């Protein structure tokens, strides 16, 4: 970005024009986001909003602007992906669209397919427009790509290097044929491909209009200055954190293959206006799919910081004061051919959790206890004999958020790295031969605290006809999300299958399993984690505890044991007994 910095010195832009151009760039991104999700076929994109759109520098792919409506986990990855494309695609032409899903080239997992469109203004390459969308399938050993048992990336699906899928506006039928021959439910992918490319085209139009209005030189200079200002804004936030070294950790249950926890060791050093994140003491690379590529590892740190300071605008400057030591030799720096399907959905959230845990020690008032932090991916693949067709059903689920100084955690919030809505039961039952028995609050799962955690979810379902196989990649089965400042951990994730013959099955790896055979009469039961508690449970207002009991969030016994609150038979606080329990 040296080039852009020179430009900034040449042309000073008044702060008002800067704000206007910043809003203009943000709107270009938001429009791409909206067009993409409304036109997409993949429910993961359209409903779960598992996609992101942005604008990246022509020279090095540095982030210029990215939509606020995009999936948080992509905040940091896309500039690295663009950089990889710039290095490899040396002859970009107008209306070209490059496709790539290689995780090791600035990506996440194979299902996140990236499109890159060179943006030309008056014949010159000005920047790149790019988006990422999670396709429901990109081939591999299990439908949907989340194999809990893959040990190399080839088992996870088709890996596309950067190639021009559209050549000057024309879709290349040969590349399309290769893709369609290697993925499941391929007939709907043409719709996603067109939607994904159309979103970039809309971005192209809007950005052209912005440049027509303000001039290319002004916009270029504004981009450089906005970068400097975002950096300044992030620095001002960091300056409010006391200098020092803060440590936090988080554990992934297992890698799905070897049943041992993976540790993320986070050591954050705050020095003045800069922060360094060192994860080099984390577990070594793992055999199963819980490795994280470096782009995703970095992005996870960025999104954690954005959750703590939500009002800092996103561009390359935002990240300048955040230094991430490459965690080589750990599972957070995955190299070919390590399997990586779990990195975007689960490991990323554990990294964020480790950042939260560390910074709770520095600025507890601004932090919160750990959120459930799992995407709760559950896939059911089977054959419907009545409709005569095969299907793959995905269920994503939320969990409780952590308590914080001013309030209790949210119940059934979405994943830390997501902004996705879950599918209604009425919709799932319409499309798939399943019947839900419950969709209910996971009682008792909110971690006890002065501010308690929010609650997770319990759901139970059966297939109504035909055979099916269930797979899941979840987390926090071994331990619940961390409580802080004396607060208790949230309730952990649980999975159980009750078979019609009276037997039960719980995954050996607790939160991860693959290909469990399910037939009519069998019931799959999932309980998702509650959020961590914040502050000492005995400090919680007894009246709030009584209300929680009246609502059935906790039993009277839990109120006494966890919160030291005794209730009489009518559910009213017994002040004397409470004082005895609390030792006050």
């Amino acid at each position: 970005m040296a080039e852009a910095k020179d430009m900034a010195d040449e042309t000073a832009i008044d702060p008002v024009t800067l704000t206007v151009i910043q809003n203009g760039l943000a709107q270009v991104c938001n429009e791409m986001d909206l067009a993409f999700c409304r036109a997409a076929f993949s429910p993961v994109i359209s409903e779960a909003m598992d996609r992101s759109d942005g604008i990246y520098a022509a020279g090095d792919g540095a982030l210029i602007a990215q939509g606020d409506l995009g999936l948080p986990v992509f905040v940091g990855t896309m500039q690295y992906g663009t950089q990889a494309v710039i290095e490899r695609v040396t002859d970009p032409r107008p209306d070209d669209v490059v496709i790539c899903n290689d995780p090791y080239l600035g990506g996440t997992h194979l299902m996140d397919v990236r499109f890159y469109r060179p943006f030309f203004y008056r014949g010159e390459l000005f920047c790149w427009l790019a988006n990422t969308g999670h396709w429901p399938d990109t081939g591999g050993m299990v439908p949907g790509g989340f194999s809990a048992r893959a040990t190399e990336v080839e088992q996870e699906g088709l890996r596309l290097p950067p190639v021009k899928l559209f050549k000057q506006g024309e879709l290349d039928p040969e590349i399309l044929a290769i893709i369609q021959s290697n993925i499941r439910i391929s007939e709907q992918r043409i719709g996603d491909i067109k939607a994904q490319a159309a979103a970039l085209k809309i971005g192209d139009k809007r950005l052209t209009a912005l440049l027509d209005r303000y001039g290319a030189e002004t916009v270029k200079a504004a981009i450089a200055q906005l970068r400097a200002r975002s950096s300044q804004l992030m620095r001002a936030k960091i300056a409010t954190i006391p200098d020092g070294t803060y440590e936090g950790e988080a554990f992934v249950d297992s890698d799905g293959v070897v049943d041992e926890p993976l540790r993320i060791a986070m050591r954050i050093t705050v020095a003045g206006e800069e922060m360094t994140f060192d994860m080099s003491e984390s577990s070594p690379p793992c055999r199963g799919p819980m490795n994280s590529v470096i782009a995703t590892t970095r992005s996870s740190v960025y999104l954690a910081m954005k959750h703590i300071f939500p009002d800092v605008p996103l561009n390359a400057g935002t990240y300048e004061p955040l230094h991430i030591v490459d965690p080589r030799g750990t599972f957070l720096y995955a190299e070919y051919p390590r399997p990586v399907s779990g990195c975007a959905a689960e490991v990323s959230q554990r990294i964020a959790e480790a950042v939260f845990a560390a910074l709770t020690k520095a600025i507890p008032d601004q932090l919160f206890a750990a959120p459930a932090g799992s995407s709760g991916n559950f896939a059911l693949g089977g054959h419907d004999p009545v409709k005569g067709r095969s299907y793959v059903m995905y269920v994503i689920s939320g969990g409780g958020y952590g308590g914080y100084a001013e309030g209790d955690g949210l119940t059934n919030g979405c994943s830390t790295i997501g902004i996705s809505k879950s599918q209604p039961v009425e919709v799932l039952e319409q499309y798939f031969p399943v019947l839900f028995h419950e969709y209910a609050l996971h009682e008792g799962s909110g971690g006890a605290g002065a501010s308690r955690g929010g609650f997770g979810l319990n759901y139970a379902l059966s297939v109504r006809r035909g055979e099916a196989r269930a797979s899941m990649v979840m987390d926090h089965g071994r331990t619940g999300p961390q409580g802080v400042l004396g607060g208790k951990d949230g309730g952990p994730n649980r999975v159980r299958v009750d078979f019609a013959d009276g037997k039960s099955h719980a995954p050996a790896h607790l939160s991860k399993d693959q290909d469990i055979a399910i037939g009519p009469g069998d019931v799959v039961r999932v309980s998702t984690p509650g959020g961590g508690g914040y502050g000492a449970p005995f400090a919680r207002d007894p009246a709030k505890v009584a209300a929680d009991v009246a609502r059935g969030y906790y039993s009277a016994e839990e109120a006494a044991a966890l919160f030291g609150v005794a209730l009489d038979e009518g559910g009213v606080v017994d002040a004397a007994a409470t004082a005895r329990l609390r030792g006050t």
Partner: protein
Amino acid sequence: MATRIVGCDVGGTFTDLILLETGGDGAPGSGSGRDAVRTRTRIAKVPTTLDNQAFGVLRALEAADAAPETLDALVHGTTTTTNALLERKLARTGLITTRGFRDVLELGRRTRPSSYGLKGGFTPLIPRELRLEVAERMDADGGVVIPLDEAAVRAAAEQLAAAGCQALVIHFLHAYKNPAHERRAMEIARDVWPNAYVTAGHQVLSEYREYERGVTATVNAAVQPILERYIARLVAELSGRGYRHDLLVMQGNGGVVSGRIVAESAVNTVMSGPASGVMAAAYTGAAAGHPNLVTFDMGGTSCDVGLIKDGVPQVSNELEIEYAMPVHVPMVDVHTIGAGGGSIAAIDEGGLLRVGPESAGATPGPICYGRGGEAPTITDANLVLGRLDAQALLAVDNPVGIEDVRAAIATRLGAPLGLSWEEAAGAILRIANDKMAGAVRMVSLSRGHDPRDFALFPFGGAGPLHAAAIARELGIPSLLVPARPGITNALGCVVADVRHDYVQTINEPLDKVDMDLVHRTLADQIAAGRETIAREGVSVEDIRIVHGADMQFVGQSHLLSVPLAEAGVDRGTLQDAFEWVYWERFEVALPEIKANLVNLHTAVIGKRPAVDLSNLIDEERAADLDGARLGRRSVWFEGEGWVDTPRYARGKLAAGFEIEGPAIVEQLDTTVLIEPGMRAVVDVLGNLEIRIEARTGRG
């Protein structure tokens, strides 16, 4: 005989009233002996009475000298239900639902309040202890999986009544497909319920998605007793004063309904305020030859933007009133952003100027109100730049000088930005205008409409002050400033038709849909609408039917609304209409993929008598433009600096007058700003049509 119609809209601060009298000679005005057949107009603006809006309504009637016994129609827009909802002052409500699903209302769809930040939340409309389950279950095809446990329904209803619930919701899974269990449960519950406030989900919304339908039904139940009580009191007060006709009440879909039945579907009155403004715009636009409008209503804390295409306001049935409060009945689609006169301007930690969304509100308000406000606002910027009349605006009780406002802008914003106070104030306006232009872009360009095909219709107290700059930014060629921007919502009440909407989920691939079912569903919706209009007894001149279909490609989850020309539509026409709408929106054609028919809609609209808008400003017109001039004032324009600018009195402007910008047109309810290079013409209805000269932007 004269016909006297009153529209009365209750807003957050003021209750506005407009009285139109057509024919006869008993003019409500000061009787100037002008043309007797001309429509006479009277308006009133009184403070809203928050605890019972009826007092404000009665005061407004008095202020307009509109004795109830002399009125032929009274149409009322009330925020009773919207406020009850937003302030959570709701009736205690209980829920009876399918076993295993009582927490649907609390779990939502796994969301959080904003993309970034992990704090905050929401309180479910019904607390968990008042949500009870009974054994019953339908499947997605409407087949009974578990029969209804009737004894359990009775016991649950009794338990909820005993717990002090005033209203009851019955919400079962897949009731949109087969409502038999909900119907039976209602019969049983009505037996034991102490009042009529029992709502079944499928009655309010026959659409799939259990959370959204459940919340919508709950909103209906929780505001029903409040609305009914309010309407009953108002009707009693009006009857006591001799009013002999039906009270008509505005709904969020832009239509009115008789006060006699309004409480049955109380949820339909939510967000009726923004809807009535858009209806007035559509009516005015149609009369003025502008069927395509973007409406821009700017008030003290926010601005609402809506779109009218071919005279028809856009309606959506997927709106969310606030975080985690989806209300999925059809409502006029209005996009709201936090920019209004009271929006605060401040410098962020990165050194950039921001305007809003924080608002100074009415208290402490902008600095110039003299109520203790210290942060510069949009209104303060307009004041120091000469766009607003300092005499009219500056506080009288706690005097604040214009110098104080300038000084605050200079020190708080100008100094850190290196700008003079004028430049800083200009910057506030530029950033605010840019933000509002973004909202206009979101409802037009982002939805596939070209702003150049529209006129901008500004209203509300501050809309006409900012509209010129926004139109210029977006290339919108003209503004249509209505005669009475400050009482547009009240006017919307007067011009709105009776309207009832119906939605039914089908959700089948188009090539497999039973077209007889489609035709039957649409026919049933028409019959239901006609029956309702007959039952409410409001006289209508004609009944108009509008059909639509929500469609998607198989495999998608978002919907596009496709207009249908007739109830007898065939399969091929549906497919073609959908493909066309899809192309218009995304410029994507997908011949490879089949279409899905998700919902069928019908709006049954009872046309009310036309209203003459030709004399909304009932004042003596001037003979020429000079006769309307009030004087001059120095006004600051971007790129021009200070310009000596003439001021005109809106009420004196007669049809055909032309004004060259720069100019300021003042009226009681607003100030219209005409920028240099723009030209305004007064049309026969008293609207100001302002043509925007294409001024190039800076850059």
